[in-house]
């Protein structure tokens, strides 16, 4: 059916019932005829009487009403949506009114909530190829599946590869990620009526597969703007974006200095408290419990026993580069051999051991071949078997 600015003529009449404001139509007794010509046009008669509304589709030309409006479909929709200036439409003769013009000018705005175009989920998905931004898709190779339930929903796969975008109207088996939700939730998200984080956290949107790929969709596609969306002259609110950057130099002191030397030699040094005897690793000058200075270093490890395993699925992007660590990765808490029982040491696990690692296992450090005495010398730990 013919659409102008994303809306069909009959959408305007079909929604009159829900947009009617009886309190604005008190003491109103009028009939309004509409003769809309052109593709998608038709004839309608609207009766407002004693605070009630009747909208009838008519077979032929409507006459004998308090006011009768004649217009072509495009002008009628355009003026209703505010996309065509009403004054100009009248002056140019694109809209003609027989009868009492004040009915249209004074009564209609009080009796009805303004028409806002209804957007269907399928319309938004189907526009994805036009909204694609190839310049943002360098090196991107993903298949994003949409499984939208309810009216206006459907299943689609958006394939992004070699900086091109193709839409398929089936849900492929091998999608990188599939987003499932009610069609209306999808529409609300795209129109900014529902915030993505809320929808996701509260379970209204379910994501199967690579969550990172789901996050990419915002940058790969221009935002959907329905054709009928009038340019709302919002307030301009200014924000100053900046990246303050401060260079720094940190002194290690003798303890951490020795720790880094130890890494070069594939050794772990811990500070030993002269009072309580516990080991502090990495070494610290003061034992916080006894509040005395430690001046002895002992060697601990290099192997350790795992106490708790933390599997990280969500890694925050590096604030400067935007890069995200590959997930999942595993962080380990362990007691190094010879260290006291109450102070754990934390580091990463070799990705190859993610499926096998359990609390209680023994792990050993894996060192970089070329060690310079900094944190990069220790790559990760792996299961010692």
């Amino acid at each position, binding site marked *: 059916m013919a659409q102008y600015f994303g809306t069909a003529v009959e959408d305007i009449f079909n929604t009159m019932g829900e947009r009617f404001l009886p309190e604005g139509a008190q003491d109103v007794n009028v009939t309004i005829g509409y003769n809309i010509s052109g593709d998608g046009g038709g004839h309608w008669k609207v009766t407002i009487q004693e605070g009630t509304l009747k909208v009838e589709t008519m077979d032929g030309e409507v006459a004998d009403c308090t006011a009768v409006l004649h217009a072509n479909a495009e002008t009628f929709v355009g003026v209703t949506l505010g996309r065509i200036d009403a004054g100009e439409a009248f002056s140019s003769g694109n809209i003609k009114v027989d009868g009492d013009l004040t009915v249209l000018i004074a009564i209609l705005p009080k009796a009805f909530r303004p028409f806002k175009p209804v957007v269907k989920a399928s319309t938004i998905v189907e526009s994805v190829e036009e909204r694609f931004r190839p310049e943002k898709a360098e090196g991107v190779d993903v298949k994003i599946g949409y499984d939208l339930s309810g009216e206006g929903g459907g299943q689609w796969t958006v394939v992004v590869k070699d900086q091109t975008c193709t839409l398929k109207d089936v849900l492929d088996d091998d999608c990188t990620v599939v987003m499932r939700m009610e069609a209306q939730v999808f529409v609300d998200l795209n129109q900014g009526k529902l*915030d993505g*984080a*809320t929808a*996701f*956290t*509260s*379970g209204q949107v*379910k*994501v199967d597969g690579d*969550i990172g790929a789901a996050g990419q969709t915002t940058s790969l596609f221009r935002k959907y703007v329905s054709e009928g969306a009038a340019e709302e002259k919002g*307030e301009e*609110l200014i*924000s100053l974006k900046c990246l*303050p950057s401060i260079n*720094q130099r*940190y002194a*290690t002191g003798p303890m*951490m200095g020795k*720790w880094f030397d130890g890494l070069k030699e594939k050794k772990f040094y811990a500070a030993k408290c002269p009072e309580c005897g516990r080991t502090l690793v*990495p070494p*610290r000058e003061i034992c*916080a419990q006894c509040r005395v200075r430690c001046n002895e270093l002992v060697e601990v490890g290099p192997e350790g*026993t795992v*106490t*708790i*395993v*933390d*599997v*990280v*699925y*969500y*890694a*925050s992007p590096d*604030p400067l580069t935007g890069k995200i660590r590959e997930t999942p990765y595993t*962080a380990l*808490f362990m*007691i190094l051999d010879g260290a*006291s*029982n*109450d*102070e*754990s*040491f*934390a*580091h*990463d696990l070799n990705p190859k051991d993610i499926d096998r690692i359990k*609390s209680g296992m023994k792990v050993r450090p894996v060192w970089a071949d070329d060690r310079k005495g900094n*944190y990069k010398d220790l790559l990760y730990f792996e299961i010692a078997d």
Partner: protein
Amino acid sequence: MGKRNRNVGIIGIGQTEYSSHKEHQNQVEMVNEGVRYALEDAGITLDDIDCVIHGNMELFEMVHQPDLWHSLGSGAYGKEQLRITTGGTTGASLVCAADNLVASGMYDVVMAIGLEKLQEGHTTGGITNMADPLWFRHLQTGALTATTATMMMEEFGEERAKRAAMKYRIMMDKHACLNPRAHRRFGLDYDQIDDLMNTSPQLVGELRLIHMCSQSDGACVMIFASEEKAKKLCKNPVWIRDHITVHREETFNNFGIEMPEMTHHYAARKLFERNGVTNPVEYFDVFEMYDPSAWWGLDWAREFLLLKGDEHIRLLEDGEFDLDGKLPINPSGGVTASNPIGATAMLRPAEAAMQIRGDAGPQQIKKEVRHALASGFGGTLWTVLIMLEKDLDWQEV
């Protein structure tokens, strides 16, 4: 802990709405909004304030010494001003500091301002930069860890622990839906436990997205007065009975074979001992706990209330932490609902005080609230614990 020189009452509380969209206000204006609400609530003007204390997590808004800029909106012009930055516990530390300043006799009326405008900053970056630059900064993943979830599942069984944590989370959301100022309200229901338990995306281990707190923008301002002034200026001042601050080293290293006593437990033990509270679950009428995640909220209920075994889970399962239970926890929805970091720890005593006053809003507990407990959390598992009272009758004890 020395003797209190004089009693201190909370006479005014002001809160802005908490949201993640405050593009229409700059930092000064947001502070000012909270200040105006607090002054209105107390029924006083800037002339009555002797000293202003200000706090937030500085690196988050990328403004050095923001209290100086914010004085354009905080009313601190011509007054004495102090700044407190103690990480996540800042809000509660502000309350403790205000109490100390007024109790000491040096000031009669002190206004404390806690705020955060995270939308303007970079939270994870800020938190990561708390870690020492020599070693931990390179390993840190922000503030996320599932160690508590792992330990709870081992102690109580995977199914029971996961259900309890999810029930806690949904209970918090139900409270948040009542609180008109809460930031996130999802409208969750208990019949979603099984679904969310297994489908909410995992962040780290069993710590799922639904369990985690958000980040919010907003300000909370409280006004404190000496007993004499409080009784003159305010119909129903809320009295600060006692508070304790237990911080520890900035290391995340107590996951060894033996776990040292948690700061929460230590704080509760010391505070209750010196105040003669032998059964916290019976004594307190409300507990506003700083619960950054549902797992921590549940685990710390045991620590703070000095419970043993699975007592805390049974209390949750029996509905005793609900609004109509024996000890309601977080009628405001807690930190998972609103988290304006510099203010969050102040919101806890603020909401608790409003419960005592009886004007907390739709989330008001129906039974009379006379004894309240509020906690603050920050950094590497630090605790601030505050006791509030409706009447001044504890001193005869």
